[in-house]
Every structure is written in structure tokens, then in C-alpha cells.
């Protein structure tokens, strides 16, 4: 037990600036965190759906949970059911075999819902394109609010995409 405590103490609080993270990055993280809190004022529940990706995007979405990005510390949670979700984070070109599952997941998500398509494949089909087995971009199957290009996009870009989807919705609501 003392080793765990020592290890924890040695590395300090999760949100402290870790070694080798540039100040620019730090400032960007803080700004995005502040923006999220301001817009949300509450928790955001995200359902991640891999609709056929190569698993590269999943690795970067998982990385959002590490101490550097600390997405859970902000009240953003990945939930186990679309029925608990405010947002779907969808990766991959949508495979023909996941088309129906993705539609059903979308239908099961309560309104008002947001969809963020993550990665080049989710944006435009990527290198896989459209074929007998691939429906291409996510927007070909369900409505998409924001796309995050990159192969895979780094965690900070994904966080920015999540934020801009929430902001778009907030602005639309304010303008109504």
C-alpha cells in the first residue's frame, strides 16, 4: 500500500502539469475545459460507437481518459447505453454490417442528441471509401453535427470536436 501512496504522491494531482507538456498545450487544455464547463454547466454523457473503424480512433478516445486530458474530471462520462447518452461519438467508415446497429443506437438515444463523427473515415470514408462492405462516412447513415478529421485525430482535436458540437447546439438554442 505504501508503494501505491508513494507512487501517487510522487506524481502529484492528475491535473498538475506533467513533465514535457508544453505551456501552449496546457493553456489549450485549460481553455477547452473552461469552455466545456461554461457551456454544459453539468455532466455530458457520451456513447462511443465504433461503426467499423480500424481501432486507431478508439485508442485516441481512450486516451482522453488519461490524467493529461482528464475528461472524466470534468463530468464528461462515457456511458454504457445510448439511452443514457447526450452525444454519440462515432468512428469508422460505417460498415454495411454496422449500419443497422448504428441506426438503432441513434434511435435509442433520447432527444436532443448530438453526433460527432471522429476520424477521416467518419468524415468522408477515409481510405476505405464506399464499397459493397462500407457505407462510407457516418453522415451517410445518421445525421452528424460535427466531424473531427485526422487519422486518427489526436485527443485534443477530439475534445475540441465535442466542445464545438455542444457549443453549436447552445448557440442554436440561444438564437431561437
Amino acid at each position, binding site marked *: 500500500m505504501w*508503494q*501505491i501512496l508513494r*507512487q*501517487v504522491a510522487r*506524481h502529484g494531482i*492528475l491535473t498538475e502539469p*506533467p*513533465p*514535457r*507538456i508544453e505551456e501552449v498545450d496546457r493553456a489549450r487544455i485549460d481553455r477547452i475545459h473552461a469552455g466545456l464547463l461554461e457551456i454544459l454547466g453539468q455532466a455530458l454523457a457520451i456513447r*462511443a*460507437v*465504433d*461503426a*467499423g*473503424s*480500424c*481501432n*486507431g*480512433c*478508439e*485508442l*485516441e*478516445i*481512450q*486516451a482522453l*481518459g*488519461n*490524467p*493529461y486530458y482528464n475528461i472524466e474530471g470534468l463530468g464528461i462520462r*462515457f456511458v*454504457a*447505453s*445510448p439511452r443514457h447518452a447526450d452525444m454519440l461519438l462515432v468512428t*469508422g*467508415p460505417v*460498415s*454495411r*454490417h*454496422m*449500419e*443497422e*446497429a*448504428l441506426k438503432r*443506437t441513434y434511435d435509442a438515444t433520447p432527444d436532443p442528441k448530438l453526433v460527432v463523427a471522429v476520424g477521416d473515415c467518419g468524415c468522408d470514408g*477515409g*481510405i*476505405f*471509401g464506399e*464499397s*459493397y*462492405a*462500407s*457505407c462510407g462516412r457516418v453522415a451517410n447513415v445518421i445525421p452528424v453535427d460535427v466531424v473531427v478529421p485526422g*487519422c*486518427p485525430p*489526436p485527443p485534443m482535436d477530439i475534445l475540441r470536436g465535442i466542445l464545438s458540437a455542444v457549443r453549436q447546439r447552445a448557440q442554436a438554442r440561444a438564437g431561437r
Partner: protein
Amino acid sequence: MATPVSDPKLRPLSTLALDLLRLPAALPIWQGRVDAARWLAAAHAVAESSGRLISVWGVDRSAAGGGMVACAAYGVLEGLVWLELLVGQTAAYPDLSGVFACAGRMQRATADLSGLRADGQSDTRAWLSHGLWAAGAPLQSGTLPVGSLPGTLPADYPFVRVEGDGVHEIAVGPVHAGIIEPGHFRFSVVGEKVLRLEKHLGYTHKGIERRFTELAPLDAYRLAGRVSGDSTVAFAWAYCMALESAWQCDIPQRAVWLRALMLERERVANHLGDLGALGNDAALGFGLAQFSRLREDWQRLSGEALGHRFMMDCVVPGGVAIDPTPDLLLRLTQQCDAIEGEVRTLRTVYDEHAGLQDRFLTTGRVSPELAAQLGLTGLAGRASAQAFDLRCDQVWPPYDQLEVKMATQRDGDVAARVAVRFDETLESLRLLRRLCAGAPAGAIRVDMMAPGVPSVGIGWVEGWRGEVQVALEISAANHIVRCHCHDPSWQNWPALEHAVMGNIVPDFPLINKSFNLSYSGHDL
């Protein structure tokens, strides 16, 4: 193209008087054509000499005036043997699943994709196809495969039913409760105890092998690098190795060393991630926080030194895309030192944590006997005493100068797979220091020229999960006729179904994570 050899060392197959050609490649790879009788005899000979089946696939050469062939790749003591069998009008070849259990699903996939049937196979259910491709087998030449009409629902999959007092089914997926890939798991349970687990995969099938035939050979390495994102270096290297073998191109020594550097960095990144996730799945969130921090440090420096956090598109035909400066190589070395200290500390924490060990020990066990029978391979295989590691068995450059120490365990449980990951991480850190210090000076890339004649090659690389294989055929007109990619998950998914039997349902995520198999690499 290839030079004939009569290698006296190739014992198991020499007795069959096979006409084998050694392909010009960094690893010992032979190719030969057999008839139906020798197809089966060769399989038995390989099995009797403790060899293993790596992959089964089909090729349609009718566009170039050839026919349909069934292919099998075997790993034997002396290297890799690639056999092909010309199939006639019946489009059938003798079933291998009676000799190698792992052939079953690969043969079912070959039926779905290439339209070749294994004659005598008892399980003829579709595997990768869910009944949503409108026109026949997508890899047959002359077909223009299209998806089915909108609104068509996937076909029902006939799972094996377990019946008895109190038996009920739990259906999970394809969308999973986590940030993971899609697949369907069907548990048959009594109370909490799992009697049987059957998987239905193919959900991430996105037509990769058909897509290869639409890309130029010099561009398709990018697609290979996206077969399974967590193994991008392994697949890109295997693809490039196949292409360089087919076109008989020697690449600079520095490029070879940098490829190994990237492959070992990929191994460490994945092992760090898994070690954290395994701690978390056994309720030690501390483990995830610590290891995910290390993994992030690791990937940031990969991005800085090699140009991409996962090193995607860094291995290219003819060499590598980027040459880290001496200063960056020094930082990579220093990072190995720093991470090693942390990993050793965390290993002590894991080893001495009674609650963690209670969850790890005896959970999800695959005995060495069962592992041999199922063809369990790679990291999971080594945790069940299947002592194969290409980096030790077939030492290709630069591994011939590194003396890789293989990590093995006998217990075959979650604890053993954790121990193999710790050992391999530490060994890779040692290798990385040598790779950084010893990389010879010189060019990092050469230009490659298409030879203008039909050519074939195989790439074979020990990725972090296990052996990855890419078989490539290119036409005289410089088109990809066939590119078959094999991920070790093919062997290990069925073994996971055995590992979970008799365990409780709540231990499944832990057992599953301890294998950490690829869906995309399997479904293609």
C-alpha cells in the same frame, strides 16, 4: 523470380517430395504447389512436427488466365511454407480443420470472400458475411460486389444452443459498453457461471482485401497500416516486406533498424495500455491512471521523434519515412530508462497487491495442451507455454544482432498474460536502447521499381499481439491481384471462448482484456 532450393533442413515437408521454391526474402519463406492428396498430407506432416497453421485464403487468378487456388501458410521450425492448391470447377479443397482446429473460421471466411469451400467441413455457416452483400463472393474477379438494398436486415446467425435446467443466454453486442470495437458475444450461463461462449464477428468487415486490388502497390502500405490500428507498424512492415520480396528490392540497413525501433515502440505502447486496463478491470484504478500516463508520454515522444503518435505511414515501401535526429534518438533512449524505472515500480505494486492477484490468478486459464490443440499464438500463446516468437525463431535483420529473450509462462491464466506483458515490455526497452544506439548510418529509403512481370511475396512480422502475415500477388501490369492480411486474432478468438468456460460472467471483461484481440484485424 524465385530460386529453387533443395534445403535438406526442411524435414517435415521433404518427405513429401514437394517442389518448393525459396522466395527472396529476409525470412526463410518457401512456396510450392500441391495436389489435393499432398495438401492434406502436408498438413498432417506439419502437425506431426509441431508446426502450426498460420493462415488459409483463396486467390482468383482467372483475370490473368490462371484459376482459383486455395492457399495455406504454415509455420515450421525452418520458416514459413506457403502451399497452394489449384481447385477445379467444384471450387472445393480438402478441409484442414480436422488437422488444425483454427482452420475452421478461416475456411468459412474463404468461402464468404472467395467462394471456395472446404470439402468435408462440418460447420458451413457463413462467418464474415452477414447476408448483406448483394452479389456473390467479393474477391472473385469479374464480380462487381455491391451492398444490398437499403432496409435489408442482417441474416440471423444460428448460434449453438445450450439446453438444460436453468440455462439462459446473455446476448452482448455488436455495440459494446465501452470504447471498444464491435462484435457479438453469446453467453450460455447457469447463474453466474459461463457454460459456453460463442462469438459472432465480421461487424467491422469493410472490404479491405477488395480495396487492396484498387490501389497501386506503392500506395497500398497505407491501407495495410489500417488493417488494425493498434498494429499499424507490424502490418505496414509486413506489407512492405512482401512487396520488397516480390520486387526483389534490398532496403538500407538504417531503415531496417528504424523499422524494428518502431515495431518495439508499438509493442511497448500496447503493453503499457493493456497493463493499465487490466489493473482497472480488476478494480485497481490506480493502475490505469499510472499506465495511461506512461502510454501518453510514450506516444507524445513517438509523435515528436517519428512524426505520428502511432507511427502510422512511417514504414513505407523501400524503407521508412522519417529519420530521427541524433538528439531525438538520445531522448528516445532516455525515455526508455525513465519508463523502465516506472514499470519496475508498478510491477512490484501489481505483484504485491493481494486483491489484484486474487482476480488474476487461475482466471481465464488456457492450459498448454489446449493451447497447442487450438493453435494459440503470439503473446497469449507464450503465456500458455507455446514458445514461438519470430524475433527469436527466425531472426531476420536487425533481430539477428539483438538476441531477443523470449518471455514465456506455463499457467495460461490472466496472471500469466500479465507477466508476459511485463517481461516483454522490459525486454523491448532493452532492445530499444540498442536500436537507438546501434542504428547504422546511411539512407533510410530506396526507390522501388515494378519489375513488369507477375510477382509474389510474403511478409511475416512478430507484432505485439503475435505473428502478422501479408501475402501479396502483383500482376505484370503492376496491379494488386490479391493481398491477404492475417492477424493472430484469428487463432486466438476461438481460444478465448475456451478460456472463459467455467469462469463467472463478471470476469469476462478481465479475461477478454488479457487477450486484447483485434476485431478489425480479424474482420478485414
